[in-house]
């Protein structure tokens, strides 16, 4: 950078417009760099540095006295329980994100249909789950699912339905974990999609209507293409956050019954912290990084390209 700063100070000869333009660009890029510097520093010091330390941790043996390279990963690949966790994490994250996106889209449409002055209170009510800290709201769900005191089962009992083992049966437990995740996350999708819907110019719909498009065609050919960017970015963001989810599973099922709701974060915690094998826990946490990074770069590049076209 010092070279650029230096070059900056040497005044360009008067009249040489090209040179001046060049120095202007240089000065601009210096200022730009300094403006982005706080961001770069925070990411470097508080994310990249600790992350590389975690990578280093993942290459140690259990007692952290010996370097084992990829040994921990090779060890994991041979364990059935690890592949079970991979499978469950994928099921959990993909299903949850899918439902969040669909519910978000549907609800956003319904809210968008309402007259402007009535929208406010509906938006407000629908946003509540996203606003309550999940660590708290999950406790409420836990209490609703409780084997002895389940308020849902109490209602069911009045209709003669057998009590549902919400967290007791592996399939119900998976359902419950996904349900709560969708409940927490769907409002965020709803609000983002609502924002996106509002930015679709009415003329497009009117044009489509004149062409005789039905509601589905309007959705498919007008709304969704216009919302493409926002859908990709929310899905990506949510996929990443859901894959890393810890609180909800931890509070609701703690991975059980029989480890059938164990996901990356809870499994990493169980191995790393509870079983006192930090390198192995770090390896589990790191495993999903390359997969998600690949997906993310793919999606983000697509978005950037479109952004430049616009």
């Amino acid at each position: 950078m010092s070279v650029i700063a230096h070059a900056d100070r040497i005044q360009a000869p008067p009249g040489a417009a090209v040179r001046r333009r060049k120095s202007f660009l240089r000065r601009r890029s210096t200022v730009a760099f300094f403006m982005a510097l706080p961001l770069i520093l925070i990411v470097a010091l508080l994310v990249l540095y600790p992350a590389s330390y975690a990578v280093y941790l993942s290459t140690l043996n259990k007692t952290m006295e010996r370097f084992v390279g990829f040994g921990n990963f090779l060890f994991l690949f041979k364990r059935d329980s690890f592949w079970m966790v991979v499978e469950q994490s994928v099921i959990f994250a993909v299903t949850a994100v899918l439902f969040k996106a669909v519910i978000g889209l549907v609800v956003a449409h319904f809210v968008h249909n309402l007259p402007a002055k009535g929208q406010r209170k509906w938006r407000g009510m629908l946003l509540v789950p996203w606003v309550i800290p999940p660590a708290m709201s999950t406790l409420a769900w836990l209490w609703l699912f409780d084997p002895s005191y389940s308020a849902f089962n109490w209602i069911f009992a009045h209709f003669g339905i057998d009590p549902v083992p919400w967290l007791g049966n592996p399939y119900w437990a998976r359902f419950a974990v996904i349900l709560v995740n969708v409940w927490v996350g769907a409002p965020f999708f709803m609000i983002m999609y609502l924002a996106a819907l509002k930015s679709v110019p009415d003329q497009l719909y009117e044009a489509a209507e004149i062409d005789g498009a039905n509601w589905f065609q309007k959705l498919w050919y007008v709304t969704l293409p216009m919302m493409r960017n926002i859908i990709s970015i929310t899905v990506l963001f949510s996929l990443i956050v859901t894959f890393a989810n810890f609180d909800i599973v931890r509070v609701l099922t703690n991975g059980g019954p029989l480890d059938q709701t164990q996901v990356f974060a809870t499994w990493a915690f169980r191995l790393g912290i509870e079983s006192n094998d930090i390198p192995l826990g770090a390896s589990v946490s790191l495993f999903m990084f390359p997969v998600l990074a690949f997906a993310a770069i793919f999606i983000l590049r697509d978005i950037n390209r479109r952004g430049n076209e616009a």
Partner: protein
Amino acid sequence: MRELQSGRRRFMTIAAGLAAAPYVRTSRAAGTLNIGVWDHWVPGANAVFTGLCNEWAAREKVELKIDFITTQGNKLMLTIASEAQAGAGHDVLAMPTFWATGHERHLEPVDDVMATLIKQNGKVVDVVEYLGRQDGRWLAVPATPGSQIKPPCGRIDLFKKHVGLDLTKMYPAGHAPDASLADRWTWDTFATAAEKCRQAGHPFGLGLGQTTDSTDWVGALFAAYGAELVDAKGEIRVRTDAVREVLEFAKRLAHALAPDVSAWDDASNNKWLISGKGALIMNPPSAWAVAKRDAPKVAEQLWTFPSPKGPKGRVQPGLPFYWGIWKFSRNKAAAKSLLTYLSLRPQVEKLVNGSGGFDIPGFSGLRDFGIWSREGPPKGTLYNYPPRSDQIVAIAAAPAPTAIANQIYAQGTLPKMVARYAFGGESLARTLDRTESELEGMMRT
């Protein structure tokens, strides 16, 4: 009993001498001390602890800071792991069960403190030694707050009505148990009683989830049958007759338990009992204490008594707590002085009283306090809470090397095994295979 009493008298004189002169004073502690201790669930217990600490701090002129750290949300575990990795934090930290041996390399040995304490307080209980001592060195001082036993706590009325057994006669308060009844109190009887209570609509509430309450009772059951998954040498011993036998029994018992037990956490059994649905759970007296507050009618019918026995004895699940001193501590002398002070009889009695009898000290000479006969209603409900006579206190997965036992314990291998075999429709061979493979994964060094 007589022996204990004379022991106590002898102790009193020693303690009196101690207060006047040696250890504590000579170390001339001073400076600052930061301790992180278990946040006790019993209201008022923390205040008693703080009071004792402040007394010590005033006398030793140490600037003392106490943080109460809960095990809820794994707060304490996170703190221990982070401080060990960072090499910074508190001077003294409370460590439950396997956490002291798990951090052997980071802990200051406390053999000198333990020598003093054993001289004062009597022998250390086996399980406390197993989890506190490694390679001949004491790694941490057994802590009174948080150390607990998880014996059965049953409903007097329901047992009388549906099982035909008077709990208060079998294990009465204030004197020795009814020999013939206690002799017949076996796991087999237990399963029969469970079945009867289930038919009467009051199933036993024993979890088969993956939290400690589940692991603890299954661990005691396995130990009572002599079933070790991994032996003391670290060899996998899954395919033994003892394991097969205990699994067959556990399957029978599991079907007599409350529905949903494979999803239970540490709070589920308490709620099951307090709601009036359950006839028995295995837990420290926290469930009874809450019932006393929220459901007094249920509380009046609760009785705590020892575990049933199996072919290899009467095993009680026990969870000791420790206070460890980090190697990075800058005031080890003060730390040792404080821990010694807190573990002497007068202080221990105050702590136990402050916990309403919840805490069970790790020293054999400190289990005769009056509090356990006093608590009620029903009066004497906790008399049989501290282990006596023929009982063995053990932690699940013992006697495997602690590094392996820690994983068996934390990953809920034992209750998972039972739940799989009992509810998962797996054959015995398949369950043993899966468990063996899981155990092989724990042999990492």
